[in-house]
């Protein structure tokens, strides 16, 4: 089974650089997500792998096949790359039934009729649509259409599955179910998968590895935990959910570890790892900041005092805006707190350095 190797990919559209020397590898059977805001180059990357866009520079290979190599003047047409792809619009052909849609990749490959019948039944059973084989696309719900698109993509047993924002047309509830289901399917079939999305929840919950992209570059690459806990780049930290940033002087704490000192946090915030330089910026997730009522007995007596400026109730937690000196922090907490003075604490290991 193949891996996908993307090397030094660059692409410009009328002077704007959409891809800027991108390289990454998707290992065999791995689920890799390209995550980023619109215009970051993630879809261009996917379409380059699929063969619908030709990069200006670079090379894409899959297993033993070179898909495109600008230096060697190789550009395998899309129809010969043997990939499965699910589009955002699903692109289910409206004039064909579900079964005919799924059979198309097989018919193009001149598969025998009985073999087509067997395989179509098999794939439709896999996506739990066996009963709807003779329906036309307009008779299906959004979730069913998405599964038809997936069935068609895997009908010819491609080695690689490409997913271009396949959940964006589903409503929130259905999206979560489809996510689990697709991940399970990918795992069972052992498909090497490239997934494009701008939704951090989808990326975090499904991926083996996430590549966060912006401005045509890969800013951060790693497992969901790595990318979320140690974003390394301010943009990545912000894109993967809310984040507070504090800038201050680097110093050494009482236990010898690295601390960041600001006017508000004079005692210093313990930050894991090393840092070279006189000053730095840290990122702290709202849920990692501890706050408690200043008057509460038994509350933490360390940490500076702050003031709750605004509070909103979000069901399973409260979201607060807390002013500490001149900075405002957003804090997420389970406990209800009144407006007024609070004590704020950033525990060790909650913060991470970002550029």
């Amino acid at each position, binding site marked *: 089974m193949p891996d996908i190797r993307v090397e030094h990919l660059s692409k410009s559209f009328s002077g704007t650089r959409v891809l800027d020397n991108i390289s990454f590898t998707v290992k065999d059977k791995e689920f890799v997500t390209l995550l980023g805001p619109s215009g970051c180059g993630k879809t261009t990357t996917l379409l380059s792998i699929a063969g*619908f866009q030709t990069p200006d520079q670079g090379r894409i290979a899959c297993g033993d096949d070179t898909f495109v190599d600008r230096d060697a003047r190789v550009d395998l047409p899309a129809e010969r790359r043997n990939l499965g792809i699910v589009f955002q619009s699903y692109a289910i052909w409206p004039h064909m039934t579900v079964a005919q849609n799924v059979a198309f990749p097989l018919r193009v*490959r001149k598969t025998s009729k009985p073999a087509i019948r067997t395989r179509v039944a098999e794939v439709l059973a896999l996506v*739990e649509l066996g009963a709807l084989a003779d329906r036309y696309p307009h008779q299906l719900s959004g979730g069913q259409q998405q599964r038809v698109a997936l069935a068609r993509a895997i009908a010819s047993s491609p080695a690689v599955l490409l997913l271009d924002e396949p959940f964006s047309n589903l409503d929130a509830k259905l999206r979560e179910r489809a996510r689990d289901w697709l991940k399970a399917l990918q795992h069972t079939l052992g498909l090497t998968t490239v997934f494009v999305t701008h939704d951090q929840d989808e990326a975090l919950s499904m991926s083996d590895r996430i590549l966060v992209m912006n401005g045509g570059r890969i800013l951060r690459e790693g497992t969901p935990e790595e990318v979320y806990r140690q974003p390394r780049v301010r943009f990545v930290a912000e894109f993967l959910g809310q984040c507070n940033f504090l800038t201050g002087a680097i110093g050494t704490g009482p236990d010898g570890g690295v601390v960041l000192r600001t006017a508000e946090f004079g005692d210093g915030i313990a930050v894991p790892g090393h840092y070279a330089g006189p000053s730095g910026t840290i990122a702290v997730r709202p849920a990692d900041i501890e706050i408690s009522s200043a008057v509460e007995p038994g509350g933490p007596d360390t940490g500076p005092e702050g003031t709750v400026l605004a509070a909103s109730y979000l069901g399973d937690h409260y979201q607060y805006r807390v002013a500490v000196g001149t900075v405002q922090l957003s804090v997420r907490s389970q406990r209800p707190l009144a407006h007024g003075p609070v004590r704020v604490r950033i525990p060790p290991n909650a913060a991470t350095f970002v550029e």
Partner: protein
Amino acid sequence: MMSTIERPSEVTAQLARPRARWLPASAGQALVWFVIVALVVGPFVPLVYSSLRSKPIYLPGGTFTLAAYRTLFADPLFARAVRNTVSFAVGTTALAVAGGTALAILCTRTNLPGRKAYRLLLMAPIVIPPLGLIVGWLAIYGQSGYITQVVGKNLHLPVWNLSSIAGMSLLGGVIAIPIVYLTVQASLAGTDSSLEDAARSAGAGPWRVITRVTLPMLRPAILNCALLIFALSLEILGIPLFLGAPSNIDFYASYLYRSWSGGVNPDPAFVSAGAVLLLAVVSGLLILRARLSGSEQRFIAADARGGGSHRSLDLGRWRWPASIGLGVYIGITCVIPLLGLALMSCVRALTTLEAPWHLFTAENWHLVATDATLRRSITDSLLIAGGGGAATVLLVALATLIAHRSGFRLRRTLAPALIYPRAVPGVILGIGFFWTYLMFTPGALVRNNLWGELIALCVRNLTLAYVVIYPSLARINAEFDRAARSSGAGWWTIARRILLPILRPALLAAFVLMFITLLSDYDPVVFLQKPGTEVLGVTMLQYWQRGIVGPVAALAVVQVVIVAIVLLLGARVLRRLRRA
């Protein structure tokens, strides 16, 4: 849920990757491209060439010279024809723009009773075969027309002269009104009705809203179609040949036609020179129009979803008078001429001096049924409309797919090539084809048979198929193609299995439009028709000029009936296709 997912069976392990085609997709695409470009550009090369030669190109010798252009400008008849044509074009454009705009506003923005039915009926002048309408008008409103006689001879009132430039402009305007109507209506549908609502909230009455808000917003659309109609009016042939003949008024196209067919020398070079000049003027006007209107307006229909529902302006006590007036207009311009046509085909002579039932005769129809030439005209025209129409739609559909859905290198040249033939005056295209068939060896194969006329008519009208097919194609999501390519399908497979099947309703609509147009078009073949290869329009023209009017009326009735049947059938099949 996970337990239901199983590994694929062994069947799929044997699946090969898709086979490479022996012929690259681009070779077939290049063939289609070449056919289109050769057919569209081909005729103009010998046309320009022959206008610059001292002798007809089929004779040996001859040198390059501008003599033909000098002859043309020295001819006082030519100068008069140009003046007539310009007056006619100005009159026609003014009438069509004023009438079409008023009708469009009436039918789409007011509470006019019966506006839904009128929206359809107003299209009649472009659906009725043009010669049928012209002959019908002559039969009723011409010098010796039925109503003219009633008014003049029976009531002793002053009568009009349809064979004047004003009279011809009137008919020209009536025929052009649907074009303005459609353009303005599309523009109205695309504008935000809240702009008008705002004016009404500010206290403006319906009349003020129309004159101060609606009309100014329509200015680009009106300018756009005014230029189009002006350009089309310059090349009109049927009106001067039928209506202008009694008072010896020639227009540009009829001047060329008469000089060609009635000249002392056959195929004079100054006719080619005249054609080249007209071609330059019309092309210039249409390029100007494209510049002015910008690319966003060209395919308004492609996304004319518009600005929501429009609340209609209240006409108040003018509602019913306006509605009745519109009904009378349609009656006078379309219904009565068609009835006159039918009457004319059944009588010895159309006169008020004797009751029509005394003059009743089946002779005209008998002649149509028995005369070889007349019968051949009908069968030939049906052959061209059916066979030529189907072939053209197929070719244009492929060309449209190549132009907009392929990676073919020269694809961008195809869209202009598909638009151009309709922009060229039909007579000029005809002269071009005449020279092409004469000059090039393969041309000889089609010169003396129906193929030559079929090709000229189909090339002239292929634009119509394109303008129907392209907006439908533009609405098909490009991810359909991509999904098919990822499935392993090459370009031709995608065209055959995905895009053409989805386009089926548009292809049928294009065929219906091609059929009714090919059945009644004649401009491009007036120079190509030979005994034995007659088509309806040219036969009607020739018989009319020989004074044989009864059978012409009968042929016109045949045309109208066939068009009506095809339209009805087409609409039915289209409804079924859309429902499926």
